């Protein structure tokens, strides 16, 4: 989240799209309701009517996978009607930047497309540069290649009619949302967009979110109270586990994983440290070398020296352009290319798409180590229905894991608050927390290398490691230490003392930090700030529900990101009633500002608000995404349409996919699979349900797998409410109980009726007779940027079942 849960109360318009927030974040939803109490418009745009819709002013049903068309229409509406926040757009965004002459867009394809490689040459989308290497900026917007003019042209095709034809949303409903949300383009109004996996799990997931960035920048809603783009993160510590990068492509703190072309730390830093020609751009990533060296120092301690490149050479290097994400892991596993591995606290045999392939892939492993609270569809895959254990070779180690109240440490909530939890009781039986598994395991591996030698033992043996895990010690390691006596300002810190903030981190090896964004969370002066429980606020903070003394928030306790965009060039809040920061008497008050510099009016020291962007401006046009510098509508990988109105390019030209015999995809408008399927979870179950199905009171409230369908579809198929149903896709077959409801209605798409059904994915065979994985139907096609699969849209068919075997 750019903002935080409580801040939603400050919104004048709340657009919930790609999320069923009331169901999945029920407690935080009170802040949406507080906004409503204060007069905000609440809107829910989603394929089905849900608990969220019931609490909003109105629900707009949208065909799954057409969010870009819907939002592209809003961008067109804003530009056509000049509803954008002019001063904000002119001064704080790259609207006036001139795009280079190589950029073009023609019938659904951007310039630089290589069809054989399914890849764009992104250098074709570069900005025009001046003699100093900086961007060419035309504040008059007269140059036809100004970003705002290219954007205007691009979205001029997103007329109400075209958008309505594709999304299945009536023109009246489109205008209802556009008018209410675009009313926040005024300086003293704020609108927020709340999304979740309904946006990310698409082959255009990143561009769904980019679309919201375009809208929020146009309306001046980034950085302000009640604004922002708020990812409602699902999993308990998915914010923290992303920050700490349990991901192939990142190191902790949002650094790219080294690849083979960066052989030295200097080469790495050169490739990953942006340089700006704009004097008033903070270009915060210019600090990256300090954070990288401090990370290496945290991992290798005294063994990391300037002479040995801080042990950078030991780190694994990816092959450039290769994808090592889990869908690729599973494909390699299916082809027998992996020997063994660890699956901890996740249940891919139920929650990954195209589950039949996942289950078959796991059979190919020689060994598997799982750590769980309960048996799951993953731990017991070798004895799943239809499998003969006597033919299953995989050796499985199943380690009992500790539950939250049985351990201590920190987690980071969706608003980036770092929260400490104490250990209440000992772990059940012989259960252990994950670190009390990995620390002794790694020590055994170290002992083997010490005793026997082996290949490349250095990174294992030279590591700054520990004999026994203590959470508090690792909270400190994450914050970071001085490794040499150092003077910061007028204060001298000794070797072994905690660094006070990331401003003190250096590239010379005198500091460590396992994650620079958390530096400052645990200091000599104030101790462990994640334990703070002080609700004290200034009146200015109280006015927007800011609690700066409760826990701590990364970065540097800044609660609202990009908050320099909430003030004008003189540091005066756009909305004084709901000010986030303000420049008063030569200093900032309110939230921790995005950097200490004075406001932009100070031509010497002032800085632009978007400090993480190289040139300091919010980016409408971006050459980073793999699938284009501006979001464009493409159909899902499986679609009920054979063409659409925006271009000849039916689906994304660059989405990723696999092509094994178990990766079947229905062709466009396949009459065998005419119905769109979307999937979701439930308040009473946690994602794949691996834990909550084992809690009797929760299972009783949501006992079995169902399929929600319209009365119209049920009539067509001769299905009654409560009937057993078989749902089939090109990849699998799933049994469910029919739930015939007005919550789902047929869509009219380009003149033809398209049915949509919805199914939860919380059920699996280890809980007897409740149904089995819905994801056996879903598809492994993935977003080209993130490789997140398109679990939210695929094509299926269904019929009434004669008998049911999976559901009792």
């Amino acid at each position: 989240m750019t903002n935080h849960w409580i801040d939603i109360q400050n919104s004048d318009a709340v657009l919930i799209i790609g999320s069923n927030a009331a169901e999945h974040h029920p407690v935080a939803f009170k802040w949406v309701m507080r906004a409503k109490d204060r007069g905000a418009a609440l809107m829910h745009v989603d394929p089905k009517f849900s608990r969220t819709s019931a609490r909003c002013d109105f629900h707009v049903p949208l065909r799954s996978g057409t969010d870009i068309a819907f939002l592209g229409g809003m961008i067109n509406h804003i530009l056509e009607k000049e509803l954008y926040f002019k001063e904000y757009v002119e001064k704080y965004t790259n609207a006036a930047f001139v795009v280079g002459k190589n950029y073009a867009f023609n019938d659904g394809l951007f310039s630089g497309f290589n069809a054989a490689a399914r890849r764009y040459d992104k250098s074709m989308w570069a900005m025009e540069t001046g003699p100093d290497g900086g961007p060419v900026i035309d504040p008059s917007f007269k140059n036809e290649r100004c970003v705002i003019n290219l954007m205007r042209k691009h979205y001029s095709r997103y007329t109400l009619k075209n958008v309505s034809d594709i999304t299945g949303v009536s023109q009246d409903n489109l205008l209802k949302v556009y008018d209410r949300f675009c009313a926040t383009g005024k300086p003293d109004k704020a609108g927020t967009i709340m999304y979740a996996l309904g946006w990310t799990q698409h082959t255009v997931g990143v561009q769904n979110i980019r679309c919201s960035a375009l809208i929020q920048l146009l309306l001046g809603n980034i950085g302000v109270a009640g604004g922002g783009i708020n990812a409602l993160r699902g999993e308990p510590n998915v914010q923290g586990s992303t920050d700490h990068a349990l991901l192939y492509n990142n190191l902790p703190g949002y650094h790219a994983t080294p690849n083979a072309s960066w052989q030295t730390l200097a080469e790495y830093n050169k490739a990953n440290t942006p340089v700006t020609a704009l004097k008033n751009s903070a270009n915060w990533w210019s600090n990256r070398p300090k954070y990288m060296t401090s990370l290496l120092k945290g991992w290798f301690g005294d063994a990391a020296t300037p002479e040995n490149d801080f042990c950078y050479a030991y780190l694994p290097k990816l092959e450039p352009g290769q994808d090592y994400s889990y869908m690729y892991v599973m494909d390699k596993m299916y082809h027998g290319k992996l020997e063994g591995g660890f699956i901890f606290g996740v249940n891919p045999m139920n929650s990954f798409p195209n589950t039949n392939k996942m289950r078959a892939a796991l059979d190919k492993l020689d060994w598997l180590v799982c750590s769980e609270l309960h048996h799951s569809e993953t731990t017991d895959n070798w004895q799943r229905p239809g499998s003969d254990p006597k033919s299953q070779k995989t050796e499985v180690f199943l380690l009992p894991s500790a539950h939250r109240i049985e351990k201590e440490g920190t987690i980071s909530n969706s608003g980036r608050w770092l929260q400490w939890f104490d250990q209440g009781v000992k772990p059940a039986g012989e259960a252990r927390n994950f670190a009390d598994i990995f620390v002794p395991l790694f020590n055994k591996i170290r002992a083997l290398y010490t005793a026997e030698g082996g290949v490349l033992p250095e990174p294992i043996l030279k590591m700054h490691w520990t004999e026994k895990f203590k959470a508090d010690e690792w909270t400190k390691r994450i914050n970071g230490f001085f490794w040499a006596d150092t003077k910061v300002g007028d204060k001298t810190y000794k070797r072994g003392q905690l660094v006070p903030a990331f401003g003190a981190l250096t590239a010379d090896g005198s500091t460590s930090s396992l994650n620079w964004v958390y530096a400052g969370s645990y200091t000599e002066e104030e101790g462990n700030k994640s334990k703070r429980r002080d609700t004290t606020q200034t009146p200015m903070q109280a006015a927007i529900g800011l609690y700066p003394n409760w826990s701590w928030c990364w970065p540097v306790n800044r609660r609202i990101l990009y908050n320099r965009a909430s003030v004008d060039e003189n540091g005066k809040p756009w909305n004084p009633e709901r000010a986030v920061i303000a420049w008063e008497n030569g200093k900032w008050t309110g939230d921790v500002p995005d950097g200490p510099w004075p406001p932009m009016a100070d031509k010497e020291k002032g800085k632009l608000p978007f400090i993480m962007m190289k040139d300091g401006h919010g980016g409408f046009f971006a050459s980073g995404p793999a699938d284009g510098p501006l979001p464009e509508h493409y159909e899902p990988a499986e679609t009920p349409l054979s063409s659409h109105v925006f271009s000849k390019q039916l689906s994304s030209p660059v989405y990723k996919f696999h092509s094994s015999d178990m990766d079947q995809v229905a062709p466009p408008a396949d009459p065998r699979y005419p119905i769109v399927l979307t999937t979701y979870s439930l308040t009473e179950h946690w994602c794949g349900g691996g834990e909550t199905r084992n809690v009797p009171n929760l299972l009783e409230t949501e006992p079995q797998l169902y399929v929600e369908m319209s009365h119209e579809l049920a009539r067509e198929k001769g299905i009654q409410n409560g009937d057993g149903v078989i749902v089939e896709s090109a990849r699998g077959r799933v049994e469910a109980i029919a739930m015939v409801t007005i919550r789902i209605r047929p869509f009219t798409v380009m003149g033809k009726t398209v049915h949509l059904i919805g199914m939860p994915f919380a059920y699996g065979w280890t809980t007897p007779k409740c149904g089995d994985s819905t994801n056996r139907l879903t598809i492994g096609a993935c977003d080209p940027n993130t490789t997140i699969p398109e679990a939210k849209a695929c094509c299926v068919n269904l019929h009434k079942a004669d008998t049911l075997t999976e559901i009792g």
Partner: protein
Amino acid sequence: MKKTRRSFLKGLSAGVICLSLGQLGFDLKEAQAFAGAIKIEGAKEVISVCPFCSVCCQVIAYVRDGALVSTEGDPDFPVSEGALCAKGAALFSMYSSHHRLQKPLYRAPYSDRWEEKDWDWTLNQIARKVKNARDKNIILKDEKGRTVNRLENIFMMGTSHASNEECAVIHQAMRGLGVVHMDHQARV
């Protein structure tokens, strides 16, 4: 420190409510006897965080004689103001669940059952497998002769259920081994 909602409520329940009910003529003996026997009496309050969605509602765990006796929402936590959803409210049942795994289990190749094992044996087996796989398969140079120190045939999946400290431990250990196939729920 500022008076919190919780300490205020405590004062309120101990004083104002009882007093006013007594004044209204209620017989308090029965209520007081019940209050004396409530399950959290004498229990230690431990601050924890609900383990489900990333609202991260803080919870109070009541612990007596080393056993969990009750859980409830933390009324001082500014985001939740003490509320919990169905899952958070069921937290206590999760700890008393008979389905919980209690001991390391082992399934041998082609076996049709689990066997209980001790931790030391289990971790020794895994350490040996990891070392053998790494020594045999780690890629020191790529096809172009560049140093890559990459271990491709072992993977790590998980987990957003881990604390930040557990994540830091897992990441460091995995990169030390050279693991590149590492991913978790953030990509689901």
